[in-house]
């Protein structure tokens, strides 16, 4: 499982940062920063799905391997 994050679509709702801080940080202005590159560790797959499912701007996509 991998994450695709669309920074242009992100409006700084911070839902991903709250639900999955292991996968997303925020910059000084509150926009999301994706912390993982490549495959998501298995133990974080559930959190990755939550982050994607709760983004109001549809900026996060989960891509299955």
């Amino acid at each position, binding site marked *: 499982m991998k994450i695709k994050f669309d920074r242009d679509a992100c409006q700084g*709702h*911070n839902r991903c940062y709250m639900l999955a801080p292991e996968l997303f940080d*925020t910059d000084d*202005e509150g926009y999301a920063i994706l912390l993982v590159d490549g495959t998501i560790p298995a133990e974080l797959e559930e959190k990755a799905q939550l982050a994607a499912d*709760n983004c109001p701007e549809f900026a996060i996509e989960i891509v299955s391997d």
Partner: protein
Amino acid sequence: MPDVPRPPVEDWATDFDHTHPDYAADAPQIWDELRETCPIAHTERFGGAWLPTRHEDVARIAKDPEKFSSQGIIVTDWRPDVPAPMGYAPPITSDPPFHAIARRLLLEFFSPKAIDGWEETARQTCRDLIAEIKASGATEFDAATQYAQHIPVRVIADMLDLPREDGDKFRTFIHRILSEPGQNSVAEGATLFDYLEAKVTARRENLGDDLISYLCQADIDGMALLDEHVGGTIGLLIIAGIDTTWSGIGSSLWHLAQHPEDRRRWNNDPDVRPFALEEFLRFYAPVTMARLVAQEVEVGGCPMKPGDWTLLPFPAANRDPEAFEDADKFIIDRQRNRHAAFGLGIHRCVGSNLARMEMRVAIEEWMDAFPDFELADPDKVVFSTGQVRGPREMTVRIPAESAAAVGAAAAATVAAETVA
């Protein structure tokens, strides 16, 4: 009360009036019926306005700032005579490209990490208010006027370094602007903007480390911000930051008062709370925004003309069954919840992290103090009119056994303090 009572609404699809008390009483049902029968309602009131109720249409309008201008965001009978490019209250009343510049000035103050620094202020405010309620010994009290409404006022006053005692003034300004827009006569010199002009002028002479002082010293391409910009932005933070969060806290408590099972879930399962908070925001989203149509455009088959208003009822979008499973049910641990309570697109609420923190802390502290409570009389709860929805009067009762426990705890605290 408005100077002139609003005429009754004959038909919500063709004659809606969101400032009418009937709308305040029944908005969710009105949205649901419209979504089924006439998903974009219209009215000749306010000089012509639209009310979309589907998530898809609300999102489409929110994400098209070229065709839908933010120069007007509160629907009134007249059209705003706007000082372009910023509008009266930048950045919420600004369009691109000025919008991004004005917004960037604020973002770092309202990032999640910056807001963490205000949690203790919010928590202490809640504890002080609860201590006052408990000290009164009453078993019935108003959760809106004695609790919810004071929390955002005190925090924003501290952020701006304005006197907390001015909270009553803020609420009066806000009520005039939001609940009955343009329906009041106000004495000259007594508006929010008169108040802010005086404060900004004084602050320029006596700078501190608060947000007003920061804006007084900020620049855009080397030019200091105009007084109107600083005053307008502070006005925005007061208008948008107080009624809204007060409504969010109040509606959450209104729900918990009527749902013992959800009270138990909140009290017994801390893991459910982050999901519960977002579900409160979805189901009871307080804020409906508005736009002025800037170019001819068709949405959902409706021809919109320049100068028309269109409301952006995010709470209606949040209850659209096309966008949410079991949209009409409050599900305290909802896992998929892309709610639009803080808007969509470039105008996402700049204070969303502050509002969310205040709501979380306010509910946590309330539930710790009053794990069991109910509405004294559900029919006597009064909801606000206009574009911000929430309970304005809400008497709650704590059950006798719970009251006895509170009384005993208060007595124990007094005893402990006496001993100390």
